[in-house]
């Protein structure tokens, strides 16, 4: 349109970002917004200004999975009786599994089982996969090359998290060493489901190869 003659100022950029975010069917990344604005537009500044403007309003701007979206203020949830969808109730086992994946990702099925001390029953992991909260992420470079699991963008969007670094308490837990998947040496809790030696091998293998579990070849897209 008249973009070429008209150099939009900050306020105009802010208006446009506001319009785009309101109209979007899902969260938009800064890059996606920028693509629809004149070159050189300060998208970050506009988002910050909008965030400020909507602070404390009935509708707020929020960052989920590195994207931006407007949503109603959490304290007004009681108003939304008509819009509310009864979420699929996740079992305690499924929630624990989801939390373990979220805080330890990427992690393998065996690692999930070792934290919970029970083998993962059928239906737990596939429910999470089917709901789209969890995704297959890659393979651990250890014997057997087990598949690793991670949370998806949908998980972050559902729980309103900007990234996995914003999981509640994650910093404290990491500082306390609680997110370390390797058990202290020589620890063999009996586990009739799996051979203990096998388990131990796996954990020590992990220790040696890759102290940070960064060995997943699959980068973020």
């Amino acid at each position, binding site marked *: 349109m008249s973009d070429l003659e008209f150099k939009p100022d900050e306020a105009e950029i802010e208006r446009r970002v506001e319009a*785009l975010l*309101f*109209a*979007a*069917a*899902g*969260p*938009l*990344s800064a890059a*996606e917004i920028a693509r629809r604005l004149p070159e050189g537009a300060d998208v970050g500044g506009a988002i910050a200004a909008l965030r400020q403007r909507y602070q404390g309003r009935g509708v707020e701007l929020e960052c989920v999975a590195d*994207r931006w*979206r*407007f*949503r109603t203020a*959490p304290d007004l*949830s009681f108003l*939304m009786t008509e*819009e*509310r*969808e009864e*979420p699929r109730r996740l079992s*305690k*086992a499924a*929630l*624990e599994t*989801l*939390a*373990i994946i*979220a*805080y330890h990702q990427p992690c393998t099925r065996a690692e999930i089982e070792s*934290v*919970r*001390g*029970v083998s993962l029953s059928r239906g737990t992991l596939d429910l999470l996969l*089917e709901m*789209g909260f969890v*995704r*297959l992420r890659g393979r651990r470079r250890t014997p057997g090359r087990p598949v690793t699991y991670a949370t*998806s963008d949908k998980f972050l*969007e*559902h*729980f*309103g998290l900007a990234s996995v670094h914003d*999981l*509640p*308490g994650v910093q*404290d*837990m990491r500082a*306390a060493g*609680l997110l370390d998947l390797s*058990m*202290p*040496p*020589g*620890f063999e*809790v*009996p*586990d*009739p*489901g799996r051979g203990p030696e096998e388990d131990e091998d796996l954990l020590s293998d992990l220790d040696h190869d890759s102290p940070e579990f960064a060995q997943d070849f699959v980068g973020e897209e």
Partner: protein
Amino acid sequence: MTDMFQPNLDFAAADQAEAEEAFVVDLEGYEGPLHVLLALARTQKVDLLKLSITRLAEQYLAFIHEARRRNFALAADYLVMASWLAYLKSRLLLPRAEKGKAEEPPAELMAAALAFRLQKLEAMRKAVEAITGRPQLKRDVFTRGDPEATVIVPSDRIDASLYDLMAAYVTQRRKEQARHYNPTQRIEAFPLEAARDWLREIMPRLDDWTPLAEVAPQGDEAGGPSTASYVASTLSASLELVKEGGMDVKQTAAFDPLYLRRRDVGQPMELTP
């Protein structure tokens, strides 16, 4: 116990009450031994790392005892954990006379590791509370209910995950399997009645231990029941006869051949013609 985040962990209180009555044995409520141990550990009201493992072991053993008294069928892992804890407790209590077996870690280390594991599980349970306590989409917070007619769709996503791909593949293969399955093609089996008659017929010749495979009728080349079916039905029929007291069966080890023999003591009822 350290509350590392989300100070309002009301579930802790609820679980506390539950744990105090830990001997209200309800295995359904626990997912596994580790979950029971965690519930028990909470009653000690200390930092999980300063937990008294010996007390915990006692509590757990009492729990198992109670569960068995109530005739709960206890899963193997509950019992294995019980024996492991009893062993750990004994090692913790006994004075360390000489060096234990070289390959075994010191008992204190094993105890600390268990405490760490409980702490980790506890942290994950708190994490569940913290995550589910967050405002959830379509439950607490809502996005635009009526986006514009011309919608801006986040474009750099394609709706297909590896899981979708896998699921699609398995669905295909399953369908293919279903197509090839032909229910009209019945597998012919050696009837049990026939097997009984057969056994009665050859019984007089079974003075010595005879392998099952030799006792069973040999399959016919042209159609008819398979060898496996002959063997299976003969085994079933022979077990019936064992129950009736007409026969003995023995096997020296798992997966070894089974041997059958006529029973001499006790009258084999109407079996003898």
